[in-house]
């Protein structure tokens, strides 16, 4: 059917006379009219129309018109042969039930799921919408196999770690590449307060039409040096030809922490610390010392009679609130399609002092100028304002308030925060200081497509991404640690990224049984970041908070960094007989980030697929309706190591206001990308006429030349040296099952399940495979990346109450001398299994859907344990496990004797390590489509009301706040599996309404 070039040109020049008209009607299989369905003359894309409210259309056809193409979202497109004899055509479209016909975005092109030889997970806007979280990443949680979404903590702005198929790098970036409508997004955390922020917070989930996650090498290799961690392709909403569609969504909800940990009350605190002081200092001195402290902590209240019994959890957490409103208008005709949308989110976090306000708008427009040229523009602008709290490792972080004594009153009699607490009262910071971050973002592209001939086209896309962040901090005279009459800090950072992509696409039927698609092009990407800060002190009063009122400017910094990528890429895909598929791609990337000797890299990938069910021996098999096997091999790169990682750098410093320079980083001209070789073998199947479909994938990733910040001996004077050395191999399996359990007229029930296993093993390391130990974790050949490396805790000595450790792991001899206990490998910071289970049950318009997620195999080290569960080593309030402490000879317990300043068992050990396995009801929603009879009365197309919940249920043995909370300072949380006074996630219940006009 596909015309050759010559024929096409002949036809094209012969369309000027003999036009004729045709009317018709388009319905679904139940004869219900389809409004806004597209009706197009085949091979004449500019000639078409859309159906009206009754599903009717009228179209003037060209002389040569032989067929119409009729399409509608969610239905299989249909080609109808016509002639002048045809009158009042009646077409019924069939609902497109097969997931296999879904169109996937694969980078510089699209492909149907059926024809694809890659592993790509597709999420639709319906999967992502109406979930009461303020960032789009969290909406993906549990929905794609092998994709782990971890929001660091329950702070509204908390950083997010997205890991696709586990970690395959040790020192370099592990985040996937985010590409929005072809534009690689800036995803750099620019927070100055020590806790990472989610830079993509500005993107409203309501703008997103679909997310395609490229997981294997065959799909991601087209992104070359940036594809090793997977690629997340985000497609924003577009208009469809047809009547304007107005959609309005509103929701509001309340939230609370998923869990709080239990702490000692005043009576228990007094008993424990009196006992601990006596154990260390003797009855007389001990009692005197501790009562002196109680006097101080009680701040004039009667601690002997438990006058005050503060549970600081009550002070830290509050009822949060989240409201979302978004409004979009979309529509168009066959030539022009438009989408305008705006969204507003306001979130009052569960932590006191933590709030978010976001407003965003998007306009996507596309116009077909002529048969040959189409052009358009997408632009999204947004602004977010975040009121932030201190990082987890700060005295004035709210959650650290659980270290305060229950004896301490929270407020003075006059209502001001009590300043005489064990640690600075975070309410003083909350009340007299502020830290406001504002993010503004413009992400847009202009694009044009030129069709030389029907099957050969050229695309040029110019994209621009601008992320601008300001931080304004003011700490007033009444804040803790204030000695400079006020303190102000301002930062201003602008990151700009522009990318110009040019590529040709050629699609042609070589013969009846061979279809070829070729894409080739090049891309230039420039990224620039300008950063400046200023710090001032000595303010006239707290009424003056702007930096210009500071009498003394104490610090100023500035930076201007750049990186460039220059890339060439090509991809060819061949489809033989609609059952054999071959694909090859290659990308050549050059990056300024790498050493002058190793600047360019080639990233090839090959894949094959075979739809076995098309073969005659399976063709009419009633059980196995679809079977495809596919395999791919590819090589990817990871270039996320910072802009100047290869260079020897000397930085400017100041001593006594005189400038100096110092060696900051020793350079390595041979530094280059991490190369990751990946093999993926997959099977896709459909059973019982695709009632059950599924996918099983096995993969290995072998990452070589790991970008390694090799720790140097301190005696060298430098911390580390960037080197490509080391090798990690990851293996995994992913299973996806989708089932349409019930499909009756009144009741539909679908289930989607995914589970993924990922393990990795370090094959080689720098310095002759020497162990790399960082804090509580180790990288050792033969073991997983970032394994926990700790002495095994053996409980309390029944005779003495001393903390005991195994000298060489569980079962060996015990010792009470911490330094005599060998460290052993006792777990890993990354989970080995992750899974998700989604169900949707629709009963006459009443829809219940819910998603469970689960993680197994990760351990979490409680970095705060040494203070919280420390046998009363210091005056921090303790967790209730301390009630089971050793008190008398013969006591068998895991909690050693309480000893003030005794460091009895406080060394890092498995005592503070716990499994972080959990199953969580990530989201649940009950919605009801209001009956047409009702909506028509108020002139509304359709309307839906819903009640939804996020994180409503959690099943876990973990005793910390939340198995999904990790420390947010430095790399302790994600890299080293630390929890450190980290805020639990929010549990949210909301109600809302979706209306379409």
């Amino acid at each position, binding site marked *: 059917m596909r015309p050759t070039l010559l024929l096409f040109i002949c036809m094209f020049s012969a369309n000027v006379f003999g036009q004729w008209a045709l009317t018709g009607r388009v319905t679904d299989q139940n004869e219900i009219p389809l409004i806004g369905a597209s009706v197009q003359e085949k091979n004449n894309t500019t000639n078409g129309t859309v159906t009206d409210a009754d599903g009717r259309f009228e179209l003037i056809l060209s002389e040569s018109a032989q067929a119409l193409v009729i399409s509608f979202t969610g239905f299989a497109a249909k080609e109808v042969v016509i002639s002048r004899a045809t009158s009042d055509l009646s077409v019924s479209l069939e609902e497109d039930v097969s997931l296999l016909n879904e169109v996937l975005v694969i980078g510089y092109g699209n492909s149907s799921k059926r024809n694809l030889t890659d592993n790509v997970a597709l999420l639709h806007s319906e999967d992502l919408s109406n979930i009461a979280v303020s960032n789009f990443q969290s909406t993906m949680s549990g929905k794609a196999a092998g994709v782990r979404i971890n929001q660091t903590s329950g702070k509204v702005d908390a950083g997010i770690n997205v890991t696709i198929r586990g970690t395959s790098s040790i020192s370099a970036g592990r985040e996937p590449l985010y590409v929005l409508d072809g534009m690689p997004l800036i995803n750099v955390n620019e927070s100055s307060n020590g806790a990472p922020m989610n830079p993509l917070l500005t993107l409203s989930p309501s703008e997103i039409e679909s997310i395609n996650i490229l997981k294997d090498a065959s799909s991601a290799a087209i992104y070359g040096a940036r594809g090793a961690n997977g690629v997340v392709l985000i497609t924003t909403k577009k208009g469809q030809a047809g009547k304007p569609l107005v959609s309005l969504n509103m929701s509001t909800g309340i939230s609370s922490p998923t869990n709080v940990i239990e702490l000692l009350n005043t009576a228990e605190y007094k008993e424990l610390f009196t006992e601990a002081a006596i154990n260390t200092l003797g009855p007389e001195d001990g009692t005197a010392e501790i009562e002196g402290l109680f006097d*101080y902590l009680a701040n004039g209240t009667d601690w002997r009679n438990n006058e005050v019994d503060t549970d600081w959890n009550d002070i830290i957490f509050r009822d949060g609130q989240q409201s979302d409103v978004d409004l979009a208008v979309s529509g168009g005709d066959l030539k022009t399609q438009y989408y305008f949308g705006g969204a507003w989110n306001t979130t009052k976090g569960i932590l006191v002092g933590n709030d978010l306000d976001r407003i965003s708008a998007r306009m996507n427009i596309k116009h077909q100028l002529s048969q040959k040229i189409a052009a358009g523009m997408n632009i999204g602008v947004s602004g977010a304002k975040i009121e932030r709290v201190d990082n987890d490792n700060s*005295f004035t972080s709210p959650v650290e308030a659980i270290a305060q004594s229950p004896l301490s009153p929270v407020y003075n009699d006059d209502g001001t925060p009590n300043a005489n607490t064990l640690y600075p009262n975070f309410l003083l910071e909350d009340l007299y200081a502020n830290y406001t971050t504002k993010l503004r973002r413009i992400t847009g592209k202009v694009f044009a497509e*030129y069709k*030389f001939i029907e099957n050969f086209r*050229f695309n*040029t896309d110019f994209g621009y991404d601008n992320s601008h962040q300001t931080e304004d901090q003011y700490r007033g005279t009444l804040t*803790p*640690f204030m000695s400079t009459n006020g303190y102000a800090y301002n930062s201003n950072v602008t990151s700009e990224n522009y990318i110009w992509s*040019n590529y040709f696409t050629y699609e042609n039927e070589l013969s009846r049984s061979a279809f070829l698609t070729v894409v080739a092009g090049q891309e*230039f990407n*420039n990224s620039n970041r300008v950063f400046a800060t200023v710090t001032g*002190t000595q303010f006239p009063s707290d009424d003056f908070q702007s930096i210009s009122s500071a009498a*003394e400017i104490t610090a100023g910094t*500035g*930076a*201007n*960094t750049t*990186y*460039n990528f*220059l890339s060439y890429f090509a991809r060819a895909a061949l489809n033989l007989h609609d059952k054999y598929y071959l694909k090859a791609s290659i990308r050549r990337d*050059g*990056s*300024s980030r790498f050493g002058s000797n190793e600047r360019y890299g080639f990233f090839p990938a090959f894949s094959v697929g075979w739809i076995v069910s098309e073969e005659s021996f399976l063709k009419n098999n009633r059980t196995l309706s679809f079977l495809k096997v596919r395999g791919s091999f590819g090589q990817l790169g990871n270039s996320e190591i910072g*802009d*100047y990682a290869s*260079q020897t*750098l*000397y*930085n*400017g*410093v*100041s*001593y*006594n*206001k005189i400038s100096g*320079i*110092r*060696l900051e980083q020793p*350079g390595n001209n041979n530094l280059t990308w991490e190369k990751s070789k990946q093999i993926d073998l997959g099977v896709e199947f459909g059973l019982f006429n695709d009632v059950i479909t599924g996918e099983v994938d096995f993969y290995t990733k072998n990452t070589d030349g790991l970008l390694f910040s090799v*720790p*140097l*001996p*301190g*005696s*060298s*004077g430098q911390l580390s*040296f960037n080197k490509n050395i080391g090798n990690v191999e990851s293996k995994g399996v992913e299973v996806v099952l989708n089932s349409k359990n019930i499909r009756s007229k009144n009741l539909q029930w679908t289930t989607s399940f995914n589970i993924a296993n990922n393990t990795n093993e370090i094959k080689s390391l720098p*310095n002759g495979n*020497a162990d790399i*130990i960082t804090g509580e974790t180790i990288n050792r050949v033969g073991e997983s990346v970032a394994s926990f490396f700790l002495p095994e805790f053996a409980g309390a000595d029944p005779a003495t109450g001393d903390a005991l450790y195994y000298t060489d792991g569980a079962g060996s001899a015990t010792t009470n001398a*911490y*330094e005599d206990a060998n460290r052993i490998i006792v777990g890993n910071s990354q989970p080995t299994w992750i899974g998700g289970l989604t169900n949707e049950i629709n009963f006459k318009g009443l829809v219940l859907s819910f998603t469970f997620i689960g993680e197994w195999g990760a351990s979490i080290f409680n970095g705060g344990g*040494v203070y919280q569960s420390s046998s009363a*080593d*210091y005056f*921090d309030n303790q967790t209730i496990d301390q009630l089971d402490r050793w008190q008398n000879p013969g006591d068998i317990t895991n909690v050693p004797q309480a000893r003030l*300043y005794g*460091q009895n068992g*406080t060394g*890092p050990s498995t005592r503070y390590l716990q499994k972080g396995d959990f199953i969580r009801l990530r989201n649940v929603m009950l919605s009801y489509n209001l009956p047409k009879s009702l909506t028509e009365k108020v002139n509304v197309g359709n309307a839906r009301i819903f009640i939804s919940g996020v994180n409503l249920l959690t099943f876990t043995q973990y005793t910390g706040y939340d198995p999904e909370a990790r420390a947010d300072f430095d790399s302790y949380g994600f890299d080293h599996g630390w929890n450190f006074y980290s805020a639990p996630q929010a549990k949210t219940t909301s109600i809302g309404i979706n209306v379409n006009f």
Partner: protein
Amino acid sequence: MKNQYIYILTFLSLIFLPACDDRLDVEPTLSISEETALSSSASVSKLLVGAYEIDGNAYSHGGYIQIYSDLLGADQEVSWNGTFFEPREALTKEMNAINFLFEDSWRNTYKVISQSNLVLGNLDVYTDDAEKGRVEGEARFLRALNYFDLVRLFGNDVHGVPLRLDPITDYGSDLSIARAATSDVYAAILDDLSKAISLLPEDNDVYADRFAALALLSRVQLYLGHYEEARDAAEEIIATSGKSLSASFADAFNHDEDGEEDIYSMQVTSQSGENQLIQMYASEENGGRGGDISINQPYLDLFDDSNDERSQFFYENAKGDRLSGKYTNQFGNVPMFRLAEMILIRAECNFRLGTITGASPADDINTIRQRSSAAPLVDVTLNDILLERQRELAFEGFGIYDIKRTQSSVAGLPYDSPKLVVPIPQTEMDTNPLMEQNEGY
């Protein structure tokens, strides 16, 4: 025809873009390359300033080095009230190799040494000999100062610390290095100091001058028990430096700019430099953490005269803890060598040698006492001199070193107890296969 233009345009665009290959050469704007940094005398001199900056870091002479010594040398005299136990390990003498403070101090101190080595390895770029001599002298002073504290904290009589005297040119090479013998470390220190003393000018702004090097030499020789050399160096400073004791004891501290008594200090301003002594000794109002280290009665019991200003040089924080008055200026300099120390060294050495070079021991001791309104002593014993050091120099980083060199004890531990030697940081053990851990860790 129209098509042709578009063909041309698109192909042009493809031809144009490859010409951007040179765009992959991106130079950082914040930093300079090795070639630039080491090519001119101006930039090598800036490296030297950088070495001071590194040395002024909290983990080195910005305060922690001094704090470890005083906590190790104390028992009941001070309390550790801070919330993290790492410094407390020095006070309880239960130190661990995983203590990150010791690690950071180890690293940072070697960083000063490394940067000094870099300066000393690139002196060829100087054409002016005086300038070159000054730079060399300062770098040698800084290197000696840091090796001296490293070997005293982390070494014992026999086992010193890794000794590097040349810059590292390739950080990709094997950087394993064994511990040098303590005697070799001291030989290097004394060599650096003798050269520094001959090279440095007598006046050198806030940077190390000849008297700073002499003061360090005096301190090193005293520690080694070379009393004549220690006395002579101290004497030269007292006689020729023009320094004098400040009018009152209080005037000797919390300087924004070096005072008449300061021989050498680490410079702190509100914009640069760190003062960890403030952090740990001062109240929140004075810029500290509220009084992590407070002073107890046993320290006050060392005084023999209630008029002694030094016995009252304290204040209370909100909790009622007694805090030292030596550190109350948040952005004050960190004193490193005061003239008072030199007078005390001269007194002790004269006493031990039976000489009266410069002044008699009693006169020196009374000079110190009278400045603080303490009654003069008629006769002095060695014990009087050592006590006077504690009254005068407490909380300035002398604690454990005086105990070790006088072979006394602290908290029931003899001066040579392995518990008084800071463990080699675990990270050094983990990255340097030639390193040997200290006894008992």
